């Protein structure tokens, strides 16, 4: 599904990622953990195609294609989705209108017919129920005036509508209280699928109580310094990142 090889990324001249390798298979959930400033969000943004990040070395293959050569919209068309850490407010654009434009753009990219208004509405209602989203939000401008929890839930809802093959959740847990976190996690879990891979970027282990990953990778200073199963997250929770930073990097990279 996804293969990242020796990825180096710079932002405004500063090296942020310094050789990241990661292989994600179909249907797998990988969690990327790490302290603030380790490069977690940079990795997510680079995969989604943010232009502020400069790839200085390395390669990313997505289903055998060169992901880095694609524009953000092509990546979306190919089935890549990132749930933003800070979803952008877009006054003047209704959420339902925006989502229909997005879904139809993706369908068009894939050579499928556009959905008409009625079919789209039915789909929207169905997905809103699935991820427990108050459908009144759909008639409001994109993220405008949404609470932190509503924004994050909105991202998961968009993911449900757009049905990506690779979903990257960038600190979807940040700023959520435990109830909101649970609702968001339930939404994510309802979207688990043998054909859908996920990369869950988080600072805290608590999200992983709800979204149980297959693999956990620890990113420190732009490199993976440890990878393991879900128990690695618990160990980190107990001992903190300080513990692992002192350990020699014996098990960098991989997943498998």
């Amino acid at each position, binding site marked *: 599904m996804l293969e990242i090889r020796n990825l180096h990324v710079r932002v405004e001249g500063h090296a942020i990622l310094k050789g990241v390798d990661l292989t994600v298979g179909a249907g797998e959930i990988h969690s990327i953990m790490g302290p603030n400033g380790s490069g977690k969000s940079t990795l997510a943004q680079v995969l*989604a*195609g*943010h*232009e502020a990040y400069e790839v200085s070395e390395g390669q990313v293959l997505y289903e055998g294609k060169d992901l880095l050569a694609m*524009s*953000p*919209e092509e*990546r*979306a*068309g190919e089935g890549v*989705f*990132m749930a*933003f850490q800070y*979803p*952008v407010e*877009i*006054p*003047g*654009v209704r959420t339902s209108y*925006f*989502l229909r*434009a*997005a*879904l139809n*753009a*993706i369908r068009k*990219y894939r050579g499928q017919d556009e959905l008409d208004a009625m079919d789209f509405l039915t789909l929207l209602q169905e997905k809103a129920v699935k991820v427990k989203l108050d459908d009144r939000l759909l008639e409001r*401008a994109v993220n405008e005036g949404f609470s932190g929890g509503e924004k994050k839930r909105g991202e998961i809802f*968009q993911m449900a509508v*757009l049905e990506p093959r690779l979903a990257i959740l960038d600190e979807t847990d940040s700023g959520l209280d435990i109830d909101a976190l649970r609702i968001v996690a339930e939404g994510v879990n309802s979207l688990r699928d043998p054909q859908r891979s996920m990369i869950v970027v988080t600072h805290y282990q608590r999200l992983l109580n709800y979204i149980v990953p297959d693999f956990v990778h620890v990113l420190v200073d732009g490199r993976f310094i440890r990878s393991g199963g879900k128990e690695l997250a618990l160990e980190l929770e107990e001992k903190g990142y300080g513990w692992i930073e002192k350990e020699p990097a014996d098990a960098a990279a991989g997943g498998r």
Partner: protein
Amino acid sequence: MSSNPHTTNEKNPVEPYLADFSTFEKAHQENTPSWLRPRRKVAISRFAEWGFPTILDEGWRFTNIGTLARSHFVVAPPAGEQGSEAIAALLARAESYVPGDATAARLVFVNGRHVPELSTVPAQGRGVKIGSLAGALASQEGILECYLSRFADADDRNYTFAALNTAFLEDGALVVVPQGVELDKPIHLVFLSVSATDGYTSAVHPRVLAVVGRNARASFVESHLSTRHEAAHWTNGVTELIAWQNASVDYHRLQLEDPDALHTGLLRFHLEADAQLSSHVMTLGGALVRNDVHAVLNGKGAHGDFNGLYVATENHHIDNHLRIEHVRSHGMSRQNYKGILTDRGRGVFTGRIVVHKDAQKTDAKQTNRNLLLSEEARANSQPQLEISADDVKCTHGTTVGQLDAESLFYLRARGLPLEKARGLLVQAFAQESIEHIGIASIREAMLSEIFGRLLARPALVSVP
């Protein structure tokens, strides 16, 4: 003769207008009411004194109207036979946003003159008057003497083009909505300008006088449309609107002229106590446009909303100049102007809030936001406050910026191609201004007019 020091060394551009005025005055000697003659005379002498403003005049710092001063614009002749096709096309466009309706009033003017065959004036009863100014002058309507040029002609050189309009005042619209009468359909005033000269520069000076009585309610749409002319053409309009106590007025001024049009327009509003005004000035056409809005909130508790949207493409220049005066207490005003500027287009906004000493508890707010879509587009924005009362709330805010990069990325990351994402954000920006318009067909038409104009620009946006 001219006190304008910047033109004295050259041929004074005002002089041909004085000669035109003599001819005009003679031609209209018969049908001019006696009270109007001195008003025209005062107006032309003011114009003679003030002349064409230059960028050294405070109110014109960012707007060079050299194009107007360099040519002599004669009063446009009536459209000939060959104009009828163009007129039909322009009318069809006007009908796309205010559909033809046998029960709604529509006055159509071509090159400044009322055309009864194209107009619809259903009987309104209840003392409502909707008709041409020329007709009202001919039949000696008493209300004209009382109100015509009472507010729009001030002894202030900012009114130099209003003075020119008054001097050549000939036709336009008169609307009177008596006390307590509520009109539910908008009155559409359609000003069309079609090429009728053999290549010489021409002007029209349309005039609107509207009086909305106590507790009355009315909605107006003043449209300006034109075809491409062989030579430069100038529309110099003046609208005076008086809203009596507790009257409620919506006023839409839609400037949709062709890309070469020169346009100056004054909206002069006078609001008495508790009157409610909602004004919308949409400027989507014209090479050089100057819109003046001068509102005097003369009565306690008067409320004015002033919305505006301007779109400048190519090398067009659009200047919106507002002066909102609070005279009595508890008044409220909201200015909300937005500009979309691309190519080498330029937008100028000046919003002046004047609070007189008796206007305590005034609540005045002003915002101006500009969106620059190209490297060379420019915006100037000048808030001005002049406050003589001590218990008031006045705020202003200005932004000039490009499309937000993070918003663009967000939309693209959801699959929208770059052009579509840009289009959607531009639409959203315009939408915030357009959504205040109460007439759905106008909202839709303005959006498509905007995209029609922007789409013609290279690699800019696509309609979402």
